[in-house]
């Protein structure tokens, strides 16, 4: 803060500098937050029941939406890919085409987006409300680390549930593709699954696995961070929730491209 008003020419520069400092500062706090949370994961005591509760919160409660979106994604894929392949007379490859797109790309990404919408936003709102009603301060003054109780269990639960949700999404999606391709469009069942076994190898599955694992960290990290650093009042919680979902979604897509270009 300067006491004398700056010359007009410098004001823009000043604003830019402040903006840059702010961004760097926020990034630093964002990173430190994860570091501190990981530190509480690695040191005892471990809050086992909080961890189980978070698995229920993030995983079990997102199950229905995962099954629903997984099924329809598979069906859409089945139909569209069939219509494309049939032009080249290679509709026999419908099975591997559906399976590979699901396992390598769509499964991890769409499952992560769905869990973000279903559980990530709720996580931010819950922690945000705990912040503005001083429940987090109450933990702090009990000499207990709120990160250990609220953030660490969520991140660990993200690591466990995201790969599981992705696996469920993939399986239901492949079945959706089967429904359309085999039951509706008359492809033979043997072709659909047989070609799949030929073309999908472990490496594809591992690609999807690593992706979903990292999305689990990214989403729970962003959502708990936004909840922890909520603004004032109900409006602050609303904004934090929106921010958390938007930032998580963007990071999922950016990180997915990055992983896709690094992983085999």
């Amino acid at each position: 803060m300067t006491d004398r008003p700056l010359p007009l020419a410098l004001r823009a520069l000043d604003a830019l500098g402040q903006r840059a400092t702010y961004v760097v500062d926020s990034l630093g706090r964002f990173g430190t937050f994860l570091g501190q949370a990981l530190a509480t994961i690695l040191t005892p005591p471990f809050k086992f029941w909080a961890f189980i509760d978070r698995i229920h919160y993030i995983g079990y409660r997102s199950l229905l939406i995962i099954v629903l979106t997984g099924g329809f994604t598979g069906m859409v894929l089945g139909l569209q890919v069939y219509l494309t392949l049939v032009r080249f007379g290679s509709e026999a490859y419908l099975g591997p085409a559906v399976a590979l797109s699901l396992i390598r790309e769509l499964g991890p990404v769409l499952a992560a987006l769905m869990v973000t919408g279903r559980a990530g936003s709720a996580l931010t709102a819950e922690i945000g409300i705990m912040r503005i009603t001083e429940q987090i301060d109450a933990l702090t003054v009990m000499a207990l680390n709120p990160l250990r109780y609220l953030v660490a269990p969520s991140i660990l639960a993200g690591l466990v549930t995201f790969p599981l949700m992705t696996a469920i999404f993939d399986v239901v999606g492949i079945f959706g593709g089967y429904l359309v391709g085999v039951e509706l469009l008359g492809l033979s069942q043997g072709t659909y699954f047989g070609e799949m076994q030929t073309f999908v190898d472990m490496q594809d599955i591992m690609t999807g696995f690593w992706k979903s694992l990292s999305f689990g960290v990214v989403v729970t990290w962003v959502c708990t961070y936004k909840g922890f650093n909520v603004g004032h009042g109900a409006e602050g919680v609303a904004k934090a929730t929106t921010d958390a979902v938007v930032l998580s979604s963007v990071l999922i897509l950016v990180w997915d491209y990055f992983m896709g270009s690094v992983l085999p």
Partner: protein
Amino acid sequence: MIKVQGLTKSFGRQQVLRGLDLEVPTGSITVIIGRSGGGKSVLLKHLIGLLHPDAGRVLVDGVEITGLRGRALDEIRQRYGVVFQGGALFDSMRCAENVAFPLREKLHLPRPEIVRRVEAALHQVGLEGMGAKYPAEISGGMRKRVAIARALVTEPEIVFFDEPTTGLDPILVNTIHHLILDLHQKFRFTAVMVSHEIPEIFEIADTVAMLHEGRIAEVGPPPAIQASSNPVVRQFIRGEPENAEGR
């Protein structure tokens, strides 16, 4: 002994504390009074290390806590009990679990001992049988009492109360005040209490401090405050409207 020296705190352009000095002797009950929005909660948050001052120091038994972070600060907080203005109950837990929480997580007591102490604590605040309810299912006054039970159940050395009786009916105000007095006689904790209950607090306070415009305008035993010649204090404890002074 808690010692506050030259405490200064601003939020943006708004200066809330302006070089505040205060001493809280060990084992005494000190009540802080002052206008709503005057910075009483802000002062309390500095004492418990939730806010860090722009200038000045807070010393607890000679240890400066203003610069402390992490584990060193937690060591001081181990001795604290805090009743927040809004109660700050964990709303995902039942009332009994709220009271049990510090016993389990902080003191690591065995389960039967926790159950016994929680029942006794809820009984003391007149809430026996309400333990199974969630904070959202009980009245504001009941939440306050659960918060008091949670703060005192660990038998802390130093207790901070932020308006523990605001919003309670007159009978409950006296009940809570007597409860605090009883427990104080039993455990001899040091208490810092923010309260608007005038004149009731004059019966339980050892020292009353009036916060005005970011400083302590007057501090002393209740009779001295009641007989004060300071117009700010007189106006406040008589509840005269703001423009009455000039007439």
